[in-house]
């Protein structure tokens, strides 16, 4: 359904000689199969949101390609891209900020339908009512404004609006991170139901391992712009191979080892080796000198580490 090939995104700061680059996403490749949920897990600043935006071409990659349903979307002209947009939707972290505070709920949900054109206002009204029900909201919510709703309810509205354009592919970026656990469970269950009923393909970005485990079929663990481990979710949870993935998923295996970041004596802290080197308790000489390659350790299970 979606394939990302050697994606890279650099952000620059400063000017001319003082110009500095930060690689938010550093040469990552992944694929998402039709109908599956692909989890992207990592701590803050690891580049997972940037990777999600690149997958939808909401930002332009510095290099690399994204192929969506056989089409290389990184090469598309803006007009062609716009035609494809309804098929790919993004759900953001903060539902209150994703909705226009001056629009009633029904208008927010109707917006994508009106933009698509070709529907009478009665048809739109009917569809909005269906979407409101599908998202588990009550009909009386339609006439409210976002500020009159709770965070969980607003996230349902955002979901309903995303579904209005009938997408095949959704990127959900921490959709429940600001919500209480009992509400989180409601939203995640709703997403699972919708995925099943509408056969959606989803990229699910989260920092919460348990949520990723529950939601995704396959997953990738990101750290400092790199994918360090990727494969079937259950496989990664039962046998994490990368030292960082082990630290995240099975800290009991790492008990007693030192993961505090070591200071490295080199210019700007740049060194050619593995991004996890400064925190890795197993690091050897090769790890600081040479960038590791993705190694397949099993069918559909890859690890970026010299020592695996």
């Amino acid at each position, binding site marked *: 359904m979606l394939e990302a090939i050697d994606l890279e995104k650099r952000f620059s700061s400063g000017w001319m000689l003082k110009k500095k680059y930060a690689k938010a996403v550093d040469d990552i490749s992944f694929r998402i199969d039709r109908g599956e949920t692909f989890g992207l897990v990592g701590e803050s600043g690891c580049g997972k949101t940037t990777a999600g935006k690149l997958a939808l071409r909401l930002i332009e990659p510095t290099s690399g390609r994204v192929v969506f349903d056989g089409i290389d979307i990184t090469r598309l002209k803006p007009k062609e891209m716009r035609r494809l947009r309804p098929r790919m939707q993004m759900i953001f972290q903060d539902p209150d900020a994703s909705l226009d505070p001056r629009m009633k709920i029904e208008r927010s949900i109707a917006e994508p339908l009106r933009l698509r054109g070709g529907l009478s206002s009665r048809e739109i009204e009917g569809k909005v009512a269906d979407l409101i029900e599908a998202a588990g909201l009550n009909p009386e919510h339609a006439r409210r404004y976002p500020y009159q709703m709770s965070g969980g309810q607003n996230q349902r509205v955002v979901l309903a609006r995303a579904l209005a354009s009938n997408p095949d592919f959704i990127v959900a970026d921490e959709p429940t991170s600001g919500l*209480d*656990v009992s*509400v989180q*469970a*409601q939203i995640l269950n709703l997403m699972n139901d919708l995925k099943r009923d509408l056969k959606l393909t989803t990229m699910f970005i989260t*920092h*919460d391992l*348990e949520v990723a485990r*529950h939601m995704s079929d396959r997953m990738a663990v990101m750290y400092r712009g790199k994918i360090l481990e990727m494969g079937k979710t259950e496989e990664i949870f039962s046998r994490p191979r990368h030292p960082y993935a082990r630290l995240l998923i099975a800290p009991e295996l790492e008990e007693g080892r030192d993961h505090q970041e070591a200071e490295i004596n080199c210019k700007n802290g740049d060194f050619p080796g593995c991004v996890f080197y400064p925190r890795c308790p197993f690091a050897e000489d090769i790890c600081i000198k040479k960038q590791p390659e993705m190694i397949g350790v099993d069918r559909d299970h890859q690890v970026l580490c010299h020592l695996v």
Partner: protein
Amino acid sequence: MCSLEISNLRVFFPTDDGLVKATNGVDLRIEGRENLGLIGESGSGKTVLGMAILRLLPRDARVEGMVTFNGQDLLSLEEDEMRRVRGKEIVMILQNPTSALNPALTVGSQIEEVLRLDEGLDRPSARRRVVELLKTVRIRYASKRAKEYPHQFSGGMRERAMIAMALASDPFLIIADEPTKGLDVTIKREILKLLKMVTETKSMLFITHDLASAAEICERIAVMYAGELLEVARTEDLLNDPLHPYSKVFLGSLPSRGLKPVRGTCPSLIDLPSGCKFHPRCDHATAICKREHPPMLKREDGRQVRCFLYA
């Protein structure tokens, strides 16, 4: 030693929309050395409870009930006596270390200030103590780091600095309000480990919405909902055999326990439900739950639960 007793504590905030009943008759004790976890969802009143103990609430808050700490009635102390309690006997670690630290002063000088004001140390010995404290909270290159400003610290290090500051006055009780909120998983685990280590000789009231964190470092856990405690239990009892229907669904809604949703939403603190405050969302609710307010039941095995199911 720490002996904290809260009885029938109520906190109300008058607002334009009506009276916000943030805390509705809380009874809680911490006796001797103990880490007590206070868990609840947002708006359950847990932060307000922590603030009320230290009288840090805004002036328009109406506080009723009793808070006794080591024989002193905190709610009736004079302000200058209260200030001594706050600095020396009970300290609070706030939710957001970025805003709790002064950005214009070095981290070392902020901890030094506590030592000189509360402990009366002179400058050289205060400086030595700062480095010791930073080492205690496992900050590397402590003497160099003491001279740095908060913005040069990472989130996890700022939290460590906050803990060092809390330890500076060697208090009996630490009130930690969501100290791991916003931290990455690996950092969070390290901070929890650190909190566990520093509370080997102190007590802590650990306020959080994260049951897993509380379970890791607390011996007992109190479950708060709509300004009341619904259950107080030893950690392993709560995890293995929660009694209150809310505790049960709260645990069940965790991703690691099956992600079963709880129907409905938390009630508004202005317009609380009659009877048991959880009854509109409870699968076991009967007529009496709607009509009458359940008292906290103390069972023979020492467990406490506020529910008619166990009456």
